[in-house]
C-alpha cells in the first residue's frame, strides 16, 4: 500500500511538470492555432534564467538568504521568461502572421526557434552542466514508508494553482473572452474593437511566464541543468496537451497528469524500457477513440 501511495506522489510530481508545460502549448494553440514548438525550450531558458537569478541574488553583490531568494526568484524568473516568449512572438511569429504566411511556415519557424535557443545556449554557456543552488531548506516528511519532501508538495500545489488561475482567466475575464474570440474568428475580432496583437502578446506572456515558473520548480527538483533539458519533456508535454484536447486548459492539465501517471506506473511494474512503448500506446488508443482529445472540440481546420 505504501508502495502505491509513494508512486502516486511520484506521478503527481512528474505529471505537474508535464501539466505546467502543456498549459503553455494549449494557451498559444487556443488563440493562434499555432503549435509553438519552441515552448519546451522556453521552459529550458526559464530554468537557466532561474539559475542566473538565484545565483545573482545569493551572490556577494546582493547576498540574500535562500528563502528570500526563492520568494524573489519566482516573479523575476517569470517576468524575464515572459520577455523571451514575447520576443520570440515579436521577431519570429508576428512578421510571418503579418505577411499572411500559411500556419505550416509558422510552425516550422517555431521548431527552428527552439533549436536556436538550444544551440545558442550550448554555444554561449558550454556543454558542462550547471548545478542549481539549494533554495528551500529541505524537509522530508515520513508517513510509514512513504516519504514526501516539502518541494514535492509545493510543485503539486503550484501546478493546481496555475491551472485554476488560467482557467479563471480564460473563462471568467474579459481578456479571456477576447482570447477565445480570436480562436473563433481572427478577422471579425478586430472589427469589434479588440486589439488583436495585444491579446496575442498577453497570451505569450501567460504561457511563457508559467514556463518560467515550471523551469524554476524543475531546476529545484532536478538540480542539474543542460541545454537540451527542455526538448524531450517539451515534446512529451505537447503530446499530453494533444491527448487532453489541445486548445483546452482542462485538457492540458489532465493530459499532463495522465502522462505522468502512465509513465511512473509502467516503470514501477515493468522494466524502464517499456515506459515510452506503453505510455504512447495508451495515448494512441485514447486518440484513436477520441481523435480531438479528451476535452477537444472538433474543428474543420487543424494543422
Amino acid at each position, binding site marked *: 500500500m505504501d508502495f502505491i501511495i*509513494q508512486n502516486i506522489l*511520484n506521478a503527481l510530481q512528474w505529471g505537474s511538470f508535464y501539466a505546467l508545460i502543456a498549459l503553455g502549448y494549449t494557451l498559444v494553440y487556443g488563440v493562434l492555432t499555432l503549435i509553438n514548438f519552441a515552448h519546451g525550450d522556453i521552459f529550458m531558458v526559464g530554468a537557466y534564467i532561474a539559475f542566473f537569478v538565484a545565483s545573482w541574488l545569493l551572490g556577494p553583490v546582493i547576498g540574500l538568504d535562500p528563502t528570500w531568494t526563492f520568494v524573489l526568484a519566482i516573479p523575476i524568473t517569470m517576468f524575464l521568461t515572459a520577455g523571451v516568449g514575447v520576443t520570440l512572438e515579436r521577431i519570429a511569429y508576428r512578421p510571418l502572421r503579418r505577411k499572411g504566411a500559411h500556419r505550416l511556415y509558422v510552425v516550422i519557424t517555431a521548431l527552428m526557434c527552439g533549436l536556436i535557443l538550444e544551440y545558442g545556449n550550448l554555444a554561449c554557456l558550454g556543454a558542462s*552542466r550547471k548545478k542549481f543552488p539549494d533554495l528551500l531548506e529541505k524537509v522530508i516528511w515520513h508517513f510509514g514508508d512513504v516519504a514526501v519532501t516539502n518541494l514535492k508538495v509545493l510543485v503539486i500545489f503550484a501546478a493546481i494553482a496555475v491551472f485554476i488561475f488560467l482557467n479563471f482567466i480564460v473563462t471568467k475575464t474579459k481578456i479571456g473572452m477576447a482570447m477565445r474570440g480570436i480562436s473563433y474568428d481572427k478577422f471579425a475580432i478586430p472589427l469589434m474593437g479588440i486589439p488583436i496583437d495585444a491579446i496575442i502578446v498577453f497570451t505569450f506572456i501567460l504561457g511563457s511566464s508559467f514556463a518560467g515558473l515550471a523551469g524554476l520548480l524543475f531546476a529545484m527538483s*532536478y538540480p542539474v541543468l543542460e541545454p537540451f533539458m527542455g526538448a524531450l519533456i517539451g515534446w512529451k508535454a505537447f503530446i499530453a496537451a494533444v491527448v487532453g484536447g489541445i486548445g483546452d486548459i482542462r485538457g492540458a492539465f489532465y493530459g499532463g497528469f495522465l502522462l505522468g501517471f502512465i509513465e511512473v506506473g509502467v516503470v514501477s511494474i515493468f522494466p524502464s524500457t517499456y515506459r515510452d512503448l506503453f505510455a504512447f500506446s495508451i495515448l494512441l488508443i485514447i486518440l484513436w477513440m477520441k481523435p480531438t482529445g479528451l476535452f477537444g472540440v472538433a474543428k474543420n481546420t487543424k494543422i
Partner: protein
Amino acid sequence: MKGFLKGVSLLALMLISCAFLLAGCGEDKANTIKIGFNLPLTGDIPEVGEGSKKAAQMYLKDINDAGGLEVGGQKYALEFIYMDNESKAESATNVALKLIDQENVIAIIGPNSSKQAVPAGGTCNDNRVPMISPWSTNPNTTLDRPWVFRAAFLDPFQGPVVADFAAKKFNAKTAGVLFDVSNDYSKGLAEIFKASWEAKGLGPVVAFESHGTKDQDFSAQLTTIIDANPDFIFVPDNYNQVALIVQQARDLGYKGPFMGSDAWGTPDLIKLCGEQCYGNFFSTHYAAAGATGATKVFIDRYEEAYGATPADYAALTWDSIGIMLEAIKNTGKVEADPVAMRKAVREGLAAIKSFDGITGSSKFDAQGDPIKCAVVVKISDKGEFVFEESVCP
C-alpha cells in the same frame, strides 16, 4: 536580370561550401605524425572530453617543445586532431571515419566511454586503424578486434571488485542496482556485478532496475528499489545522473550507502551532487589524493596548468598517449603512406608486453587488454576522492 543574379549568388554559395569540404584535404607534411582524438566534448559527459583534451595538450607541448618524437634517429613533430563525438554512439563512428578518411591520421585515441568506444572500435578495426580507448571498460570494445587496444581495466574485473568491497565494508547481504539500459558501459557492468554478487552466496540482488540516458526522474525505479530494502545500492552511471539519483533516493527516505563505478570519478560529480554524495564509495583507476612519484608530478603539473585535479580519464588519456608513442617508436621508421604506417603501429602496439604508466603498471594479454590494479576511493567530507583500498588481479 533578377533571376540571373539569384543564380549567380546560389552558385557562389555552393562553391564556398565546396571550399569548406576541400579544406579538410590539406596535404600531409612528411615530418609530422598525426594522431586523432575521438572525444565527448559536448553531450552527456562533456567534462570527460575536456579533461582528456587538456591532458593531451599537455603531452603534446612536452613532446613538441623537445623537438618532436624520435623515431629511428629522426625527430618528428606530433599533430593531435581533436574531434567531438557529442557523447553519441553514431557520432563516434562518424568522427572515427572522418579522422581516418579526411585527416589521414595514423592512429586514434578515444572514445572514452564504452557507449561510444564499442561502435567506434568496430569502425577502426574494419578500416585497419589502430585505436586505444583510454577509459572504456566494457569487454566488447576490444573483443576479437586486433586493431583496438585500451588503457583501462575491464568490467569483468571491476564488477567483482565492487561486490567484494561492498560485502566487506557495508557487511551487506542484499544489493540493489540502478543502471542506464541504453549505455553499453552501465548495462554491461550492472549485469557483471549482479552475477558476481550472486556468486558470492551472501544474498540476492533484490532489485535490478533500469532507466534511459535522458531521464531526469528516477522516483519510480527508486521507490521499487527502496521497497525491496537492499543493504546498499550500486549505481554504475555517469556522474550527471548520479547527482540526480542520489538526491532523489534521499528524498524518498533511503538512508543506506551507495556504491559507484569508475564513471563517477569526475570533479563535476561533486559540483552537481554536493554534500549528498559525501561518504559514498566508488571503484576507479587511480586516486589523485595521496599519489606519489610520476603520478604526483603529473597531477601537480595538471593542477598548475588548469587549476583542477585531473580525473581518471585525464590520467588514462596520458597513459594512452604514452603507449601509443612507444608503439610508434617501436616501428623504427615513419612511413609516408598512412596505410603502411597504421599497420606498423598496430604491430608496435601488439609488441608492448607491459607498460608503467601514471595509473599503475599493466601487462597486456592476448586480447590487447591491460591487466592492472583497481582502486576504491571514498568521497570525503571535503568532496575529495580519498584512497580506500587497492585491488590487484
